[in-house]
């Protein structure tokens, strides 16, 4: 393993030492030592997490314990009712959708869903949706439109699934359709990249009035490995590619692609999913309050303008 990849080691090492200590009894000396180690753990988490490279953030965004959509739903949404299927072909478990109460208002929530163990990972297709997933998402969003409910989305996918069946059933069309139809919605849409924002497969549920990113999440046009394979002709140049692509939340705020960077709990979102959901919930709640004061037409116009001004170029005709 590359040294850059093992940045979490000092944290894990300390956690193991604290764990070991808790088995050795509860005398004052041990307690004292534990407190000292816990203090050290807090400091080292802070230090390591405040100085991550883009590649390390990519790894953290893909962390095996990273909270997923269903974790956020569990902590943020009351009375959640999951809905299934695209009414055309199938139900795609790589995207979950449903409704429930978010701080006193009924909302639609949806997002990519990865699995924890091998069996669930395969069931969820590693969070890589097929066309059915995007069509289910759009069906759900159109339902929110019909019943005038705000939409909250969570983005966390390596990308849309590249397979034969997915191509046959129109993966490209499914994504494209969502991009256009989300642009027409007259209800508030708040999207948050919670882990990996993998290209078109991420954007297809990301056309929001507000787009947030968790502090250690990433959002990019292609994975660092894919970019390295194409441009460097060497997939092991993923660290260089991650750096060149500017895929971190902090970098994307500067390009106006992201509205707010959501602070992560010390050590990363996976350390305390409940607390992380609360931090995210506070931001989303405030954004919804602002958006709820706009009418449907204003919401569509604001979303259009938000994306309309994205891009960096010169226009000689304007400056002349």
């Amino acid at each position, binding site marked *: 393993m590359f040294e850059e990849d093992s940045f979490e080691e000092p944290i894990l090492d300390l956690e193991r030492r604290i764990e070991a200590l808790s088995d050795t009894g509860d005398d004052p000396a041990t307690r004292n030592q534990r407190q000292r180690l816990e203090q050290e753990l807090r400091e080292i988490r802070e230090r390591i997490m405040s100085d991550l490279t883009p590649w390390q953030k990519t790894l953290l965004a893909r962390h095996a314990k990273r909270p997923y959509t269903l974790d956020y739903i569990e902590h943020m949404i009351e009375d959640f009712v999951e809905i299934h299927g695209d009414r055309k072909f199938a139900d795609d478990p790589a995207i979950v959708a449903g409704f429930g109460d978010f701080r006193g208002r009924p909302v639609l929530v949806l997002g990519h869903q990865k699995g924890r163990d091998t069996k669930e990972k395969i069931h969820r297709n590693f969070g890589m949706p097929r066309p059915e997933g995007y069509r289910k998402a759009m069906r759900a969003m159109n339902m929110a439109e019909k019943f005038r409910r705000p939409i909250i989305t969570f983005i966390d996918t390596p990308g849309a699934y590249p397979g034969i069946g997915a191509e046959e059933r129109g993966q490209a069309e499914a994504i494209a359709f969502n991009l256009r139809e989300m*642009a027409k919605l007259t209800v508030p849409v708040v999207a948050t990249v919670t882990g990996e924002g993998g290209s078109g497969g991420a954007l297809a549920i990301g056309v929001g009035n507000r787009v947030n990113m968790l502090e250690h999440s990433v959002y990019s046009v292609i994975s660092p490995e894919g970019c390295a394979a194409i441009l460097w002709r060497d997939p092991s140049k993923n660290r260089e590619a991650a750096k060149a692509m500017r895929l971190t939340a902090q970098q994307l705020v500067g390009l106006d692609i992201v509205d707010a960077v959501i602070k992560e709990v010390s050590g990363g979102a996976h350390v305390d999913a409940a607390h992380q959901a609360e931090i995210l919930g506070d931001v989303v709640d405030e954004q919804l309050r602002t958006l709820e004061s706009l009418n449907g037409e204003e919401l569509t116009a604001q979303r259009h303008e938000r994306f309309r001004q*994205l891009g960096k170029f010169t226009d000689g005709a304007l400056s002349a």
Partner: protein
Amino acid sequence: MSGRMAWFKKEKTPKQPQAERRFTVPEGLWVKCPDCKEIVYKKEVLRNTNVCTKCDYHFRIGSRERLDQLFDMGRYQEFATEVAPLDPLQFVDSKSYEKRLVDYQKRTGLKDAVITCTGTIGGHPVSMAVMEYGFMGGSMGSVVGEKVTRAAEQALKDQRALIVIACSGGARMQEGALSLMQMAKISSALAQLDVAGLPFISVLTDPTTGGVTASFAMLGDLNIAEPKALIGFAGPRVIEQTIRQKLPAGFQRSEFLVEHGMLDYIVERNKMRDKLISSLRFLMPN
């Protein structure tokens, strides 16, 4: 710019590198068709709108050539000609993006991978964007996103039909997530066109893949394609690596997409203009 000027411009276009020339008609008296492998007389291929006379293989053609073939009298007005790329990420791989841009600008005589223009086709007012594969594989960065968006806005403003001729490997990696956002930006402009009841015809040519297919290229009221064009979301190599199987013959070709309900029709290059006119007659508001 008029079609005539474009003709002279073509003469000056410097040679393209080997990798990108494979599917365009090469130098020499005779050419070998990459599809049927027959040796065919080049003059006949050129006369046949760059289509193989033996098997109807459509050689790749440049954006200017395409414009000359489609508009009434070959005449069109270019717009947004001064929109030019920047290097917002200061991206460097084996070469800097800035340097790459200058090289491709010299090679193609274009500022980026798309030409936008207005004109009439069969008397119907049209706003058009044509992608240039010779410019970084027709990849979509901020300039392509901006110009295609402006083409849609032009259609909206003058009540024109929008026609976009896609030819692209997808989003441009050197502009990172900014390229990705162009997918949403263009699609949002297309939403306005859709609501306004104005027609959008998407013409897909070889190849159209990635973020271009997964945004505007699949959003036409009509999605049409040239024969045997490679059209897909993921590239064939990526799919093969993912599923670890060989792909069936004809996978992701125009005919495959028609079979799976993704395209309205396939049209040969020499019939493109006539077919567009017939389609516009139905689609244009009275």
